[in-house]
């Protein structure tokens, strides 16, 4: 029994969709953020898989991409949390269900 590209991609896809499900279903903004981080991780996993398996002149590309994604994820998380704090100051909650001043 051998493990091929499909296996890794499958894990990546499943993790991605799991992250998506979390992001779409959690009430707490920070929970949503966690889902997004999982999705990004899944993307990284996919990239590294391709970097390992894909026919390419520059296989390092995938790894480089992953580095950038990690960086951006960090920045995004920071801003997200800052915004969450800002919302919390105004509304005393980070519950996205409560964020409905802007609608219809």
């Amino acid at each position, binding site marked *: 029994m051998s493990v091929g590209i499909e296996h890794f991609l499958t894990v990546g896809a499943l993790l991605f969709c799991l992250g998506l499900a979390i992001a779409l*279903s959690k009430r707490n903004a920070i929970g949503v953020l966690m889902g997004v981080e999982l999705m990004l991780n899944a993307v990284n*996993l996919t990239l590294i898989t391709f970097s390992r398996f894909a026919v390419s002149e520059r296989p390092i590309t995938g790894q480089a991409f992953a*580095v950038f994604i990690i960086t951006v994820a960090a920045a995004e998380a920071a801003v997200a*949390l800052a915004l969450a704090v800002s919302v919390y100051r105004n509304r005393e909650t980070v519950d996205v269900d409560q964020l409905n001043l802007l609608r219809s």
Partner: protein
Amino acid sequence: MDGFGVTVAFWILAAVTLVAGGGVMVSRNLLHAVLFLILSFIGVAGFFVLLSAEFIAMAQVIIYVGAITVLILFAVLLTPRASRDNSETVWALPGMLLAVCLAAIFLFVVHDTQWKTVTDAPLLTTQDLGHALLGTWVLPFEIASVLLTAALVGAIMLTRSAEEEAEDALA
């Protein structure tokens, strides 16, 4: 990739990663969810090792586990206990259904494809990565640095309290 060890490692890592991910989903408490998240991140890092991307694995551990989750933990701890609820919204069910559909599509195309792959793992060292980052992708690299600065500045401004701002305005 052949070999029993690899196979076992794959399945274990897959199980850890996905189950931990599921844990994030089902945890009612945000703190538990964060812990599951860390576990899942570590699982992914394990995959990176398995795929011979050791530097990325390390970065994953340091940045994700070390920085991001700590940030999240801070945020969780800064908010009162009432906000640590990690329950679902009314949109949970359709959200999950859609995620399942999307997964089905992804899996379908992934398995439908005849992959052309290299048999041997390319020899990629951290040095190669360094050359790539400072060679071909020097521009994104610089952009990333600007991006981090901007995010920092922005995050600081957003989180400053009213008193600080009043102080600032006086200056």
